C-alpha cells in the first residue's frame, strides 16, 4: 500500500531528502579535508562540495565554531524546508524529531542557569531546531515544579515531564535524572507514534530508536558508577523499547562495574563488539567534547564528569556508538516509501557536521595525528 499512496503526499519530500543525502560528504572528500593545512584550505576544499560557498563571505580568520554554526544553519534550513512542505503524518513525524532538541535545550538552559551563566549566551548555544517560544523563561525556574508549571506545561514536552515533577529541587543530579526521564518518555512515545504509522517506517524507526534507547541505558549505567544515584532510580531511567529490554536492562540496573555492563550486553551480538576492544584502545577524551553542533551529547555530560575514571573508555565507546548509529541510519536509505529517511538524513548530517568540526578543530589546534578520528558517513 505504501508504494501506491506514499508518493501522493511525501514523494516530493522523499525525493528532496534523498537529494540532500546525495550531497553528504563522501570518503574521498573527507580524505581531501584531512589533508588540509589550514582552515582556509579547509574552506577551499569545502567549497567544492555541496556546502558550496557557505563560508565565502566570512572574514578571515574563520573559527571552528563559525564553521559548525554555518553548517548547522545549512542543516536547519534544509530541515525547515522539509518541515514547511510536509503534511500529516510526516509533519508530525518531523515535529517529533525536534522534541529531542527541545529536551537538550531545556536541560542546557537549566544547567546553565544553575551555574550562573549568562542567559543570552545560553540561548545562543541552544540548537536552533529545538527552540520554542517560552524557552527563555526557563532561566527563572528554581525548582522542578516551577519549571513545569511556568514553562513546560504548554510545550509538547509537558506529558513527558509529568513523571519527574516529584523531584524536589534542581541540582546537577536531578537535572540529569530529568533529562533521562524526559528522554525515556520521549523515545517511548516516538516509538509508539512510529508503530502507529506502521509499515517500513515502524520497522526501521524501531531499529534506530531501540538502539538509541540501549545506548542511553548503557550510558546511564556507566556514568552512574560512583554517584549517589541508587540502583532503583537508575532502573527507572532505562527506556523500555530497546533490544536489551527487559533482561539486559535488569542486568544493567544491577551492574556495578564495566564488566557487568559488558555481560549485560552479551545477549545482543552487535553490542558485544562495542566492548571487545574498548579496554585495549582507550583513547583520551576528545578535546572539544563531541562538538557543539548538536546531538544529545552537546550539553555537558555531567554524570560523565562524575565518573571521571571511566572517561577514556567511555569516549571510545561513544565513538563506537556513533559508528553504529551511522550504520543504522545508512541502512534506512535502502528502503523506500518510509519516513525513517528523514530521521536518518538529519542524524547523518549532524554526524557530518560533528566530523567537520572535529577535522577543523584538529587543523586549528595542529593535532594532525588525531585528525583521522572522525566518523565518516558515506
Amino acid at each position, binding site marked *: 500500500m505504501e508504494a501506491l499512496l506514499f508518493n501522493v503526499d511525501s514523494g516530493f519530500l522523499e525525493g528532496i531528502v534523498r537529494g540532500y543525502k546525495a550531497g553528504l560528504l563522501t570518503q574521498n572528500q573527507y580524505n581531501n579535508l584531512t589533508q588540509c593545512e589550514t582552515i582556509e584550505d579547509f574552506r577551499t576544499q569545502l567549497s567544492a562540495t555541496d556546502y558550496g560557498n557557505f563560508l565565502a563571505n566570512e572574514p*578571515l580568520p574563520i573559527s571552528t565554531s563559525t564553521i559548525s554554526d554555518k553548517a548547522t544553519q545549512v542543516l536547519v534550513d534544509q530541515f525547515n524546508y522539509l518541515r514547511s512542505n510536509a503534511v500529516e503524518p510526516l509533519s508530525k513525524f518531523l515535529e517529533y524529531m525536534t522534541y529531542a532538541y527541545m529536551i537538550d535545550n531545556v536541560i542546557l538552559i537549566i544547567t546553565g542557569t544553575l551555574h550562573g551563566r549568562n542567559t543570552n549566551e545560553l540561548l545562543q548555544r541552544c540548537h536552533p531546531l529545538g527552540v520554542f517560544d517560552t524557552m*527563555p523563561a526557563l532561566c527563572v525556574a528554581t525548582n522542578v515544579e516551577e519549571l513545569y508549571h511556568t514553562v513546560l506545561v504548554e510545550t509538547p514536552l509537558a506529558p513527558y515531564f509529568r513523571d519527574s515533577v516529584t523531584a524536589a529541587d534542581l541540582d546537577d543530579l536531578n537535572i540529569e535524572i530529568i533529562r533521562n526521564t524526559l528522554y525515556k518518555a520521549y523515545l517511548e512515545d516516538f516509538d509508539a507514534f512510529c508503530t502507529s504509522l506502521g509499515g517500513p517506517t515502524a520497522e526501521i524507526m524501531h531499529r534506530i530508536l531501540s538502539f538509541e534507547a540501549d545506548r542511553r541505558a548503557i550510558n546511564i549505567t556507566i556514568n552512574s558508577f560512583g554517584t549517589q544515584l541508587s540502583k532503583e532510580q537508575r532502573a527507572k531511567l532505562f527506556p523500555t523499547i530497546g533490544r536489551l529490554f527487559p533482561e539486559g536492562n535488569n542486568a544493567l540496573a544491577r551492574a556495578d562495574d564495566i564488566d557487568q555492563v559488558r555481560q549485560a550486553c552479551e545477549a545482543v551480538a552487535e553490542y558485544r563488539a562495542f566492548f571487545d576492544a574498548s579496554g585495549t584502545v582507550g583513547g583520551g577524551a576528545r578535546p572539544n567534547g563531541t562538538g557543539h553542533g548538536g546531538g544529545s551529547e552537546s550539553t555537558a555530560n555531567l554524570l560523565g564528569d562524575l565518573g571521571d575514571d571511566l572517561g577514556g573508555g567511555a569516549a571510545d565507546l561513544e565513538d563506537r556508538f556513533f559508528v553504529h548509529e551511522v550504520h543504522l541510519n545508512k541502512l534506512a536509505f535502502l528502503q523506500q516509501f518510509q519516513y525513517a529517511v528523514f530521521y536518518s538524513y538529519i542524524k547523518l548530517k549532524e554526524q557530518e557536521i560533528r566530523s567537520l568540526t572535529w577535522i577543523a578543530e584538529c587543523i586549528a589546534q595542529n593535532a594532525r595525528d588525531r585528525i583521522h578520528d572522525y566518523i565518516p558517513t558515506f
Partner: protein
Amino acid sequence: MGDEYPTLFRSEQMSLVQLIVPTEVAHDTIAELGELGNVQFKDLNPNVNPFQRSFVGEIRRIDEMARRVRFFASQIEKEKEPIPIRPLYDSAPLVTVGPRAAQTIDELDVKLAEHEARLTQMNDSYQLLSERLRELVEARHVLRETAQFFEQAAVRETEHRTSLDDSSAPLLQHDDREQQYSTGELQFDLEFVAGTIDRTRLSTFERVLWRVLRGNLYMNYIDIQEPFVDPATGAETRKNVFIIFAHGDILLGKIRKVAESMGATIYPIDVNADKRADSMREVTTRLEDLQIVLYNTGANRRAELMTIGENLASWQDVVAKEKLIYETLNLLNYDVRRKTLIAEGWCPTRDIPQIQLALRHATEESGTNVPPILHELRTNRTPPTFHRTNKFTEGFQTIMDAYGVASYQEVNPGLFAVITFPFLFAVMFGDIGHGFIIFIAAAIMILFERKLAKADLGEIFGTFFFGRYIILLMGLFSIYTGFLYNDIFSKSLHLFHSGWSFAEPNGNDTSVVGIPNGHTYPFGIDPAWHGAENALLFTNSYKMKMSIVLGVIHMSFAVCLQVPNHIRFKRFSDIYTNFIPQMIFLQSIFGYLVVCIIYKWTIDWSKASTQPPSLLNMLIGMVLSPGNVDPESQLYPGQSTVQVILLLLAGVCVPWLLITKPYLQYQEMKKIQGQGYIGLGAEDVPRHTDDTTLEGEEEGNGRAIVEANDDEHEEHDFSEVVVHQVIHTIEFCLGCVSHTASYLRLWALSLAHAQLSEVLWDMTLANVLGMSGLVGIIALVIVGVMWLALTISILCVMEGLSAFLHALRLHWVEANSKHYEAGGYQFVPLSFARVNEKQ
C-alpha cells in the same frame, strides 16, 4: 589544411599546443591569451588537490579581495538612495599586466582592505549610534506612556485613598519604606517594572509572567505606533511599551529576569512626576544631539560608498580576471627547478600565428626578453569541436548544439539549418501577413541590437533576442510560403489572372461552378480556390503531398550528408555498407512515392480514362500484395512489375545493411590476427620519431604528460559492432516509415494555422466590415484592435512557437538521426569576454 578558410561545414581544425612559459611572464601571458580567447587549457595536474596547487596563495588572496568587493556591492545595494556605480567602459582601466602588475595588485589589495576597514568601522559606529538612538526613542516612549498612566492613576488614587488606608497593614509598611527615598506627593503601593518588548513576543511574555507570578501582577501595555528599523538589515520591528506592577522584591526580580531573557529592554522610571519630567527633558536633548551625530555619520558613510562606487566596476572586473588567470595557472605544470611553467591546450590551428603574436606582445609588455615558446604536439586524442560562428549563424548553431555537439570535423548540420530550419517553419506558418509581422519584429531587434545587447532583457525576451536572425529568416520564408499558399491574414491576393471564371449567380441558387478559362495561375495557389466549397479538399491534398515530397527530399539530403563524413574519416567501406543500401531503401519506397505524386499531378484526370488512384492505397498495396495492381486504380502501365522490382530492391537492402559491415570488420580482425598481431589494436599509428620526440626527450617534462593521457582508446569488441549495426538497421528501416509519416506534421500545422486565422477573421473583422456610419467606425476600431492583438498573441507568438517546436523536431529527430553522430565536446577557451558575459 590549417589555412583553409573557416566554414561552418566542418568544425575548426584544432591543434594540441604546448607552451613553455618563463615564470616571470606567466601571468601576463595568460592574461594576453585570456583577452584573445582561443586557447583551451588542459588540466595537467588532475591528481593534485585544488589547495595543493602552485598558485593557491594568490587565489586565496584574490578570493579575499573578491569578498571585499562583494561586501561593497552589497552595502551599496542596501543603501536606500541609489548610489551611482560608474560603468566599466567609463572608468579608467586598471592595468594588471606588465612590470608594475604585482604592485598594482598589492595597492589594490591594500586599498580594498582600507576601504573595508573604514566601512566596517563606520557601519559599527552607525549601528552603535542607531542602537543608542533606538534606546532613547524607546525610553521616550516609555516615559510618555507611563506618564499618562500615572496621571490617570493619580486621579483615581485620591479617590480610593481613604478607603484603603486602614485596611491593610502590609501596604502601610510598604509606604514607610517608600517614603524613605521618595518624598513626592504621590506614593504608590506597588512597585513596577517598565520597558519595551517586541510585539510578537508580548503574548508569550504575559503568559509566562502570569504563570511565574501566579497571577500576582498587573500588566499594562501600549503599542508604539512607528516601527523600529534595524540599520544593518533594514528589518522592521514593532514594539510595545509595558508596565508591570507587582509586589515584593523577589517577584520584581523574577519579572526583570524573564523580561531580560525574552529580549525586552527595561528602563528605570521614577514614580515622582518631576523627576520623570526631568528625565524626559534629558532624553529629548540627548536624542537631538544623537540625531545630529547620526546624520553626520550616515553622510560620511554615504560619501565613502560614493568613492567606492566610482571604482567598483573596474575592481570587480580586475578581481574576476585575476581569479581566472590564477585558476588557469593552476592547471599548468610547474617546473620548480627550471622556473618555467608548461601549459598544454587546444587551439584552432589557424589561430596559432595570432597566439604567437600575443605571446610576443606579452613578453614585450612585461619587459623581459625571454619569450614563451609554443609548439604543436602530435596526439591521437580527439580535439574539441569548435565552430566559428558570427552573430548570424550563432543561433542556428546553438539549435544543433542543443541536440548534441558535433564530433570533431564532422559535417555540421547547423550550416544547412540556416535555410532548412526557417523553410520548414514557414511551410507550417505560411501567411504573408503573419510572416511580415514577425519579420518586422526581428528587423526591429536587429536594428537596435547594439542597444538591446547591453540591456538586461530577462529570460524570455532575451531568448527571442538571441534568436533574432532565426526569426528574421523565419519571417522572410513565411512571406514566401504565404505567396505560395496565397494567404494573407486568411484572405487571398489576386495578382494574376485566375484560371477559373465564374458565371454570375442567378436567383436563389448561390452556388456556381467554376469553368477553366485557359489561364494558368503562374505562382502559388489560384485565388479562385478561396471560398470554394471544395477548397479544403484541394489544399489538404496539395499540402499533404507537398509535405511528403519535402520530407523525402529532406531525409535523402540528410542521408547524403553521411558521405563527406565517410570520406573525411577514411571509412570508405561505410559508403557501400551504410550509405548506398540506406539510399536505395529510402528511394525505392518513398522516393517512388514522391515520383508517383509528381506524376499524378501532371496528369489531367478529367480527360483520363481511369479514375485517379489513391496513392496511399497504392503504397500499402505495393507492400502487402506485391505484383497485384487493380487495373481500375492503375497509375501507369507496367506498374506492378516496377513495384515488385522496387520492393525487392528494398528487401535486399535490409540484410545488406545488417550483415556487410560486421562481416567486413570480422574479416579485418581475422586478417590482423592472422598476421600475428594481438592486443594493442590496429588503429595505433606508429609514433613518429621526429624532432618533437627528441625535443620531448630533451625537455623531459611535458612529453610524458601527453602520453600518460592517451588511454582513451577502447578495444572495439566484435559483438559490440554487431549489436550496434542491428540497432542501426532496425532504427533506419522503421525510422524511414515513421519519419516520412512524421513530415505530415507540416501539412497538419499549416492547415491548423490557416484554419485558425480564418476563424479569427470570420469571428471578428468579418462581422464589422460591412457596418456603416459612426457605429460601424467605432466597432471597426474596437474589433480591429482586438483582431490585431489576437493575431499577434495567438497566431504569431503561440502558433509560431508551436511551428518552431515542430521544425526543431524535424531537424533533431528526422534529419539528424540519418547522419549526425554528435559525439564531440565543446571547445571552451579561456576568455575574459565570457567572464564578463556571465556577470
